């Protein structure tokens, strides 16, 4: 048997490794996308007081600690049956939306930007952030850095620290913001909306490029999966709180449920060849890593969120949403092309920026009433937010003293583990047949497919998205290396 090993992420023959096993004819027999790390947060969070969870679970991921912080704080609220006061909740949302702007901007410009803005045919030496800056102008580069800084500053003001915030507690937040801090955030919020506008315009102009259009609309990474994401009471995209809505590949609503009922809807499949679990829709069932309406595979993150909602919650984002569907799926059925995710991400960035603006202008945002003291006996609670990379659920069980007895975590990227694995498999099958390996483009395609998902396996092993250099080793049955391909 011939085997192809792809260590896709520089993160070493580490966090994400692909094994392609061929049959005797040289066709793809099976593809394994492995996540080789486990830290065990579900285990060692047991015995900790529930109020420690926002700080402990931050450390699941240094890229999106804000998402874990919020999910943990919400789960802790639920454990105590306490509702944070309006200002407390607004501060959490304000922090969270500012984080969204930063995170989406980073992904679009720093990680995907080189492919998209420079185009896939640009020289590799230019396909990096410096190339992007060169092309779009130093001014834009400065804007990207400023936007990142702005987001981090808002996070620091409200969350206490730039990385691993510390202010979320059961019942609300530990501190209010001052008038001066409010004014600072106000200015930053305005700049964010302006930057989101600029980004959407930039993307629209890029779509004129055929190669880009192919990435966004093309067929290579199209999977007919279910989609899942939070919607608000008006069925619009929401990040901090809402109900989970699931639609079938044809757009039919599979169901809508309160996040706390997730166990009725979601199960996770453990495989002995990877530490990461595969979530699937329980009511459809586990059919393996295949798409279609009969398979419980579902997709989350920007693509999923826009597919389930009937629109965006803010005006500028809504306008962009309408343009998105008019371009990609005029009949309103789900957009299946993974490449569309980049566009969806920018639309979400606009919503987040507009939300920052709206929240910071709320007269009550500086109210000192940011925390409610729980009165109920703690029991069990679920906290769900939309992390940039997908629906994030924290589920805690506690004793009557509020000490954790059991934890279940379904992390953003994990939801997309199945679809990512499918995309890998699809790329392999389209490029390898009867022992002939279409080496040109194999690596590019795999990488671009990955990037659309913006996978964050730091979270999922409870890594950060980075450049995705790869080595593909093709070995013969005896394990001897036949060929090694690498891209830098």
């Amino acid at each position, binding site marked *: 048997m011939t085997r192809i090993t792809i260590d896709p992420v520089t993160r070493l023959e580490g966090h994400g490794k692909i094994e392609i096993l061929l049959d005797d004819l040289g066709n793809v027999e099976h593809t394994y996308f492995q996540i080789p790390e486990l830290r065990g947060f579900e285990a060692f969070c047991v*015995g900790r007081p529930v109020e420690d969870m926002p700080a402990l679970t931050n450390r699941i991921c240094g890229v999106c600690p804000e998402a874990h912080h919020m999910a943990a704080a919400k789960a802790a609220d639920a454990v105590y049956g306490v509702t944070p006061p309006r200002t407390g909740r607004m501060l959490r949302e304000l922090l969270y939306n500012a984080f969204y702007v930063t995170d989406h901007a980073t992904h679009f410009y720093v990680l995907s930007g080189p492919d998209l803005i420079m185009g896939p045919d640009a020289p590799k030496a230019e396909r990096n952030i410096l190339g992007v800056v060169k092309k779009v102008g130093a001014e834009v580069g400065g804007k990207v850095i400023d936007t990142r800084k702005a987001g981090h500053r808002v996070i620091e003001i409200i969350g206490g620290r730039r990385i691993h915030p510390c202010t979320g507690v059961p019942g609300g937040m530990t501190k209010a913001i001052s008038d001066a801090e409010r004014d600072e955030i106000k200015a930053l919020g305005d700049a964010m909306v302006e930057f989101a506008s600029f980004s959407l315009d930039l993307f629209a102009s890029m779509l004129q490029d055929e190669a880009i259009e192919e990435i966004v609309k093309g067929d290579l990474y199209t999977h007919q999966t279910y989609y899942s994401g939070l919607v608000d009471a008006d069925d619009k995209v929401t990040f901090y709180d809402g109900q989970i809505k699931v639609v079938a590949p044809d757009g039919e609503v599979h169901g809508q449920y309160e996040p706390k009922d997730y166990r009725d809807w979601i199960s996770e499949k453990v495989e002995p060849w990877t530490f990461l679990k595969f979530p699937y829709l329980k009511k459809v069932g586990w059919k393996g890593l295949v798409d279609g309406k009969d398979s419980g595979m579902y997709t989350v993150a920007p693509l999923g969120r826009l597919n389930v909602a009937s629109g965006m919650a803010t005006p500028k984002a809504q306008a962009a949403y309408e343009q998105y569907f008019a371009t990609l799926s005029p009949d309103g059925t789900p957009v299946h092309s993974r490449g569309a995710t980049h566009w969806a991400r920018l639309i979400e960035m606009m919503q987040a920026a507009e939300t920052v603006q709206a929240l910071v202008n709320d007269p009550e945002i500086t109210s000192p009433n940011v925390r409610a003291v729980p009165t109920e006996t703690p029991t069990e609670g679920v906290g769900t937010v939309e992390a940039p990379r997908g629906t994030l659920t924290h589920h805690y069980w506690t004793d009557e003293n509020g000490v954790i007895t059991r934890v279940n975590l379904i992390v953003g990227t994990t939801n997309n583990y199945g679809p990512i694995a499918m995309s890998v498999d699809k790329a392999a099958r389209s490029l390898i047949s009867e022992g002939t390996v279409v080496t040109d483009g194999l690596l590019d395609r795999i990488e671009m497919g990955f990037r659309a998902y913006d996978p964050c396996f730091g979270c999922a092993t409870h890594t950060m998205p980075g450049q995705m250099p790869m080595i593909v*080793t093709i070995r013969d049955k005896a394990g*001897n*290396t*036949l*060929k*090694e391909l690498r891209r830098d």
Partner: protein
Amino acid sequence: MTAPVTTTQTPTPGPVGEPFEPLILGFTCNWCSYRAADLAGTARTKYPHNVRLIRLMCSGRMEPEFILEGFAKGADAVIMTGCWPEDCHYRIQSVKALRRFLFLRRTLSDLGIEPARLQRFYASAAEGQRFADEIARIVAEVRALGPIQPEIRVALDGHPVAPAPAAEPVEVEA
């Protein structure tokens, strides 16, 4: 004096097939329990050999780190001794030792170290017999408990440094 102790663990025999002999570290106060030990000596009061004593000026000098160091370096149990609180040589400092003892015992217990491995007793300078009796009692208890978990011992001298793996051949194109 031997105190009957119920334990679910079977004492692990030493390598030469003798009954398990625990190694116990004992901290004493210069003014009371150390002098009690002196008195036990001058009175030729016999007690088991398993305890090794350290003299501090006051039981309140006890840093919890000393106890952890003891466990880390192979003690099967550690004993804190000091003045009776009402007769503390430094007036009120014996109580501080008590507070640290209770905090540490609970923490050790949460780390999986049996509470009986951290013991304490008071002994005034006049209580040589009491000192000997208490040592005998504790040695019996710890002997029944068996050696401290091997895992803890392993951890002690630092996690063994993993040997560098044999260098893998760098794969080059065939």
